[in-house]
């Protein structure tokens, strides 16, 4: 069932165009790398603040409100460009370990972010202006940083298998 979906994806006109063109894949890949750089860089700023390493004078709530629109916009571009790259050779990518592991880590990073916003972030006005962040915030920032480093590493690895 899912294999049929992957085969259908590969037969869509954009997928065929990308796999037949000599410049579309590198072009879209460049956009993908740029978007990921902005996603990971902006998330890292927040993570380092949660870990109490950087930007200590900035209130956490304010920093997140300022950075998040950039993160989400870049993330949307990364997902769209990534989906196009994936479609050009869907069956092959789906069969690789780094691709699956990357999707797993992405999901975990999303869940970590959801958990943060559903719990600790609710009281950000109480602790976000002080320098030592609560332990839970530190854990959340550390987990996020680790997961995103994993996502980038596995993403680069997809090109080697």
């Amino acid at each position, binding site marked *: 069932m899912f294999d049929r979906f992957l085969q259908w994806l590969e037969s869509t006109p954009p997928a065929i165009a990308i796999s037949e063109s000599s410049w579309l894949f590198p072009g879209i890949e460049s956009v993908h790398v740029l978007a*990921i750089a902005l996603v990971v*860089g902006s998330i890292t700023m927040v993570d380092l603040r949660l870990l109490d390493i950087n930007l200590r004078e900035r209130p956490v709530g304010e920093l997140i409100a300022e950075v998040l629109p950039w993160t989400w916009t870049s993330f949307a571009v990364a997902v769209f460009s990534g989906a196009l790259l994936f479609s050009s050779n869907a069956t092959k990518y789906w069969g690789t370990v780094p691709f699956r592991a990357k999707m797993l880590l992405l999901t975990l990073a999303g869940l970590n972010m959801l958990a943060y916003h559903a719990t600790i972030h609710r009281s950000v006005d109480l602790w976000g202006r002080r320098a030592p962040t609560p332990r839970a915030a530190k854990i959340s920032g550390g987990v996020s940083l680790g997961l995103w480093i994993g996502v980038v590493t596995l993403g680069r690895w997809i090109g080697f298998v």
Partner: protein
Amino acid sequence: MLDDFIHWLGATPLSQLIQKVFWIIPTVQAVHILAISVVLSSMAMFDLRLLGLAGKRSSIASLSRRFMPWLWGALIVLAASGSILIVGEPKRALGNLSFLLKMCMLAAAIIVTLGFQAVLKRDLEGGSADLAPAHGILAKITGLLSLTLWVGIAVAGRLIAYTG
């Protein structure tokens, strides 16, 4: 001449080691991309502020103090990881048109940044609270140039894998 150097570099024990151990290149490339994400994000924030498009609540001087250490720190990581990649695959990078273009844009980006930082420093030392208002146009030109160059550097970097 360049071919001789590429041949010599590729035959060194260090290059041989990098070529033989399969995980070195992908891992170092991942480190390289992580450092690029630090540079691109920091410079995007700073350049957009110079262009007046974001972060207007913070002064240019304070954003400069915040982001410049990350730029230089990440550039050291990029130079180190990039060097390992060149030693491991000298033929892939040296003599590659994309690589040459990338290095030219990198040099230009560093010159633009250092030049702007020198102007900002002089303004601050001259008693100005931030970049002098007279340098507003310079800030916009710097922001646009820098942003374009860093995006170009990242794109040219990825294209090294495709061009000869």
